[in-house]
């Protein structure tokens, strides 16, 4: 048995313990067993629905771009902004009204009502696109969620659609993206599941902005009407049915569940406080004191 030259192993000690394991002593008291199991259990755990309600709190899953301190600072800034403005729960397909400060508008405030056709990016860069048809002209406005010039975000109708994005509304008939500017917000019961609107839109004839036939869209009814045999064939060639079994692809494009829990546990208490405050405000708003006449 080889022994490393150590000042603790004296020759006499070595002789005694040639065939046994040398146990050196420590000058310090043995460290206490960490009480991580008992403590970790009691930390507040955010509901699993948070990853759908607040998806922008999850960082970009690209490993090369991640840094724990940057992500933490970014989350702190997001919470700070959320303490000033109520950013409600919404999804692609929900109808929103955004009031924002605009130096070029008359009165310096502009309000836009439209359907959310895309929601993307994470952190302070999170953004969404609203679409409406104004005077027979399609209009889209891109809003950054944490832009401090946004004064108010109202959800007029909370619902989901069949697809992850509704960019095909640009090529659909205008009635599918026309919404009344003076729409009243629809009241939903507390805790009710978000309804899924399974409406299927009708597209205009080609030319289209994108090759919608290759995107496996569920919210379009008449895609096949305008396809030639060649387009149908090439769409078939570009299909990638194996991608749903690609575990590595899924792993690279998502944040693991354990990390999600950690992230939401960090921001849970503040977000929960804000939710409670919002509920209180809503109740206040629903009850209007009758005014005395004369």
């Amino acid at each position: 048995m080889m022994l490393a030259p150590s000042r603790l192993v004296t020759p006499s000690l070595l002789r005694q313990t040639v065939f046994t394991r040398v146990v050196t002593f420590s000058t310090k008291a043995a460290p206490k067993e960490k009480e991580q199991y008992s403590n970790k259990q009691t930390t507040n755990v955010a509901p699993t629905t948070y990853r759908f309600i607040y998806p922008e709190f999850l960082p970009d899953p690209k490993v090369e771009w991640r840094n724990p301190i940057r992500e933490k600072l970014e989350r702190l800034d997001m919470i700070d902004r959320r303490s000033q403005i109520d950013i409600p729960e919404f999804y692609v397909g929900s109808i929103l009204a955004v009031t924002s400060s605009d130096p070029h508008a008359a009165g310096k405030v502009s309000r836009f009502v439209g359907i959310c056709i895309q929601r993307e990016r994470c952190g302070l860069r999170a953004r969404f696109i609203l679409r409406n048809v104004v005077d027979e002209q399609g209009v889209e406005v891109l809003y950054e969620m944490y832009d401090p010039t946004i004064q108010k975000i109202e959800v007029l109708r909370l619902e989901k659609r069949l697809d992850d994005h509704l960019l095909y509304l640009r090529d659909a008939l205008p009635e599918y993206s026309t919404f009344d500017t003076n729409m009243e917000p629809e009241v939903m019961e507390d805790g009710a599941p978000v309804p899924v609107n399974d409406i299927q839109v009708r597209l205009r004839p080609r030319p289209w902005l994108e090759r919608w036939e290759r995107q496996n869209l569920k919210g379009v009814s008449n895609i096949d009407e305008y396809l030639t045999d060649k387009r149908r064939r090439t769409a078939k060639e570009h299909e990638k049915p194996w991608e749903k079994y690609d575990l590595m692809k899924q792993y690279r494009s998502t944040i693991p569940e354990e990390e999600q829990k950690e992230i939401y546990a960090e921001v849970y208490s503040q977000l929960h406080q804000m939710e409670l405050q919002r509920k209180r405000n809503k109740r206040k708003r629903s009850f209007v004191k009758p005014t005395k006449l004369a």
Partner: protein
Amino acid sequence: MIKSLILDLGRLRLTPLAVTQVREKGQLSRPHLRNPTWFLRKERKMRDNHVTSENKSFVQEIVQDKYGPPALIKGVATYDQSKREELVKTEKIESEPWTTASRRTGVIARKIGQYPLWLKNGERIRTTLLQIVDNHVVKYIPPELYKPAQVPSVAKLNSYGCLLVGAESCDPSTLTKEYCGLFKDSGLLPKKHLVRFLVSPNAAIPVGTPLNVTHFRVGDYVDVRGKTVDHGFQGVVKRHGFKGMPASHGVTKTHRRPGNIGGGGEKGRVWPGTKLPGHMGNRWRISKGLRIWRINTKYNVMWVSGSAIPGSTNGLVYIYDTILPLRKHKTAPPFPTMFDQTLEGPDDIWFDAVHNFKDETITFQPEE
């Protein structure tokens, strides 16, 4: 005749010393390139030398007893070296006032990401976050002793001293003996990264002083030096942004090629500097005149303008005071550095024009 020739040859052989004439100086005229004294082999060859785990932990214990226990300081895993003063006595340097000719030290930072901030006028700016990672002054070489073999292209070099700054303390048992010897007189644990900064003699800092983000102020301008991302050998479309040629309409085999690279006649050759395919990236580049918009003293982070700082995320960069004449310091910065560690007030220091996320929503007042 033959006889005389044989005699000559014999004489030639008999000469005690044959001198061959040297017309050129040969190797002697080559510049004598010595590396700086701190360019030593850092990594030790890790051998499995049968040290028991108990002995290993004992060595760790000795290191920690001498230098300090491991600690998380300003978001960086390092060692708590508050006992350094007991190990080594460093002489105090008399502080002199700042002048416009002074040149302060820089710091070593990591690029940790980028995200937008908004100004108070509603404008969105893109910023990069730079974290100063556990910096300490390791050594100061005064101007009269600093004679580098490879002379940096700095005007009036002989009036500047050399300040050696290290970043990120690490376990000395992973490093070579000679590299650890660099830190012997400073009482610091060995650092993973060493960088020299040229400073004017009045900006010299005592050895062992930590450098923090408070070395800079919000609103100041900095130059950031980093090594760009290595892209390898690239064609002209990626390397120089050439347009390439059409995908169809009869174009064959020249979709991403440079096309013509020169004329004929008297200029019938490839001119020097012609943009051609080649290695892209992995070069030192400095982005100059970046403004500091915000500072976080808790994590030693600064937000500087721009999203194209050289280097990858989590890569090292060096931060200097800017050399751009119109953006240099107008008033005295913390000089030679900020020695006061205990700063009161909030963690975040914002530049006046930047919107703090805790503030109310930005509104514009309509004109009367």
